[in-house]
């Protein structure tokens, strides 16, 4: 399967392959995730104890605390963060964590908001490749996407969509 839906919204560019972990409830990185271990530590969360490191994390939203941007950036710095984050709705707090980590450390974690059909097509345990580029989202569950990723890196500067006045 490869989805390439124009309705899924790329929020932060990057490419990653990993094991899909679908969370059954929103997760606040602040207070809910330990950047030292990569584990879900929110005792009320249905997936308490899950390891999110280098996964394709799929969750409804980032829920709440604005300190989550810092915690996500710290996890990216430490290498304990998910490899990609796919959301059920736009969450600026998650995007900001990924964006600042990119500026500080050059690490690009793809972040996207998915349409319900795309969201539902992802299952925990499968391996998926995610590419977010120029606002578009591509997800493949059985093979690496083509063209190869080095082309994305070569064209790393995204169109910022600005009209200058």
């Amino acid at each position: 399967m490869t989805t390439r839906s124009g309705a899924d919204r790329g929020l932060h560019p990057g490419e990653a392959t990993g094991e899909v972990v679908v969370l059954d409830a929103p997760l606040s990185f602040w207070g809910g995730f330990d950047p030292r271990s990569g584990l879900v530590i929110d005792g009320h969360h249905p997936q308490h104890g899950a390891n999110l490191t280098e996964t394709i994390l799929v969750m409804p939203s980032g829920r709440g605390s604005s300190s989550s941007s810092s915690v996500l950036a710290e996890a990216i710095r430490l290498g304990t963060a998910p490899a990609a984050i796919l959301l059920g709705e736009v969450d600026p707090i998650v995007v900001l964590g990924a964006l600042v980590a990119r500026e500080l450390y050059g690490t690009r974690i793809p972040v996207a908001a998915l349409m319900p059909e795309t969201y539902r097509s992802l299952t925990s345990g499968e391996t998926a490749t995610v590419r977010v580029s120029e606002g578009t989202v591509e997800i493949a569950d059985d093979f690496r996407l083509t063209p190869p990723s080095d082309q994305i890196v070569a064209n790393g500067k995204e169109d910022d969509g600005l009209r200058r006045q």
Partner: protein
Amino acid sequence: MTDLVLTADDQAMLAGDRGEAAALAMKILVEMAGISGAQRLIDVTGAHIDSCLFHGIAGLDFAERLAAAGGRVVVPTTLNVSSLDLIHPDLYRGSDEDRAHARRLMDAYVAMGCRATWTCAPYQLRERPALGEHVAWAESNAIVFANSVLGARTDRYGDFIDICAALTGRVPEAGLHLDANRRGTVLFDLTGVPGVLLDAEVLYPVLGHLVGGATTGTEIPVIDGLPHGASEDRLKALGAGAASSGAVALFHAVGSTPEAPDRAAAFGGREPSRTISVTVEDLKRARDQLSSIGVTEELGAVSIGTPHFSIDEFAELISLLDGPVAPGIDLWVSTGRDVLAEVERRGWLADLEAAGARMVVDTCTYITPILEPKPGAVMTNSAKWAWYAPGNIGVDVVFGSLEECVRSAIEGRVWRDDALWG
């Protein structure tokens, strides 16, 4: 793709004309404006920074990079709580390494020209934004207070973007900066709640917890049926509770908040999308949710002042504290250093400390290791403290009114009065 249009000034900043720090800040703002769909950036008259609380090296790297690049705030900017109490440094029980990092983070923000206010209640400071004024405030309780009680306009800013706004004086024109997003959508009708409960201070944090848990995403709650002219401290407790159990960044309390002189105004002339009739049973359930353990008498400590205690709340505390705190019990009061200075000026501090109250400034007892590990629950009158402390610092919490908290501290055991709750 966004249709963001930048002014010549914005573009100059983006190109580095005002230095590297402003350029990086503008780059981040522009990218985030794309996420929110803003068509332009607008001026803010002030900022309140939450990024000064230490969460890891990434936050420190960001602040030090901006400071090293010559970053200076261009609008009056206050600082939220940090991880350390600089006036009572011995209270900190964390590692020396964390202490050193937390201190470096604080120093970086001060170096960029932010005021060393170190309070989560910037609305208690003398200068605060007026009705309709656009600001960039971070920290959920400060945001909901600015929007709801002051009628100022801030979106849900948080770590990193807060300082970007302060360094540029600009924010995306989106979210709660826009009229259309400030209209009430959900009605919480309190006509079924008895007057004696409506008049009680303890109703407000409990109601906030209930409202936060019952609203989703971008819904704007309107609360009708509260006595008009509710005090700022009560609205503070309500907002902090709603912003903890939920993502509430603006509420309207009919007859108390400036954009809600009446119900029709609160909804901007539209009908509510849904109505929730609040009952005493709902409120009792919300109150019980705020205690992490069931019936207990064993008390270890009491923590009040989340968000930071105001001068009026100190006056109330003094009237309730009619005896010394029991031996072995700590009564912690978190407040801002400016309010503490006023408490001292009025001659109240010596009496409070003689009675056993312990002051914490610049930080708060649920975000940093201050409480001594001891058996027994910690009692609080704060829905926010009750929501976060069990996870953050691993304590059992019993929620109660300020009176219940103070009397418990004096008696050395959990004391609650259920009469109010029928």
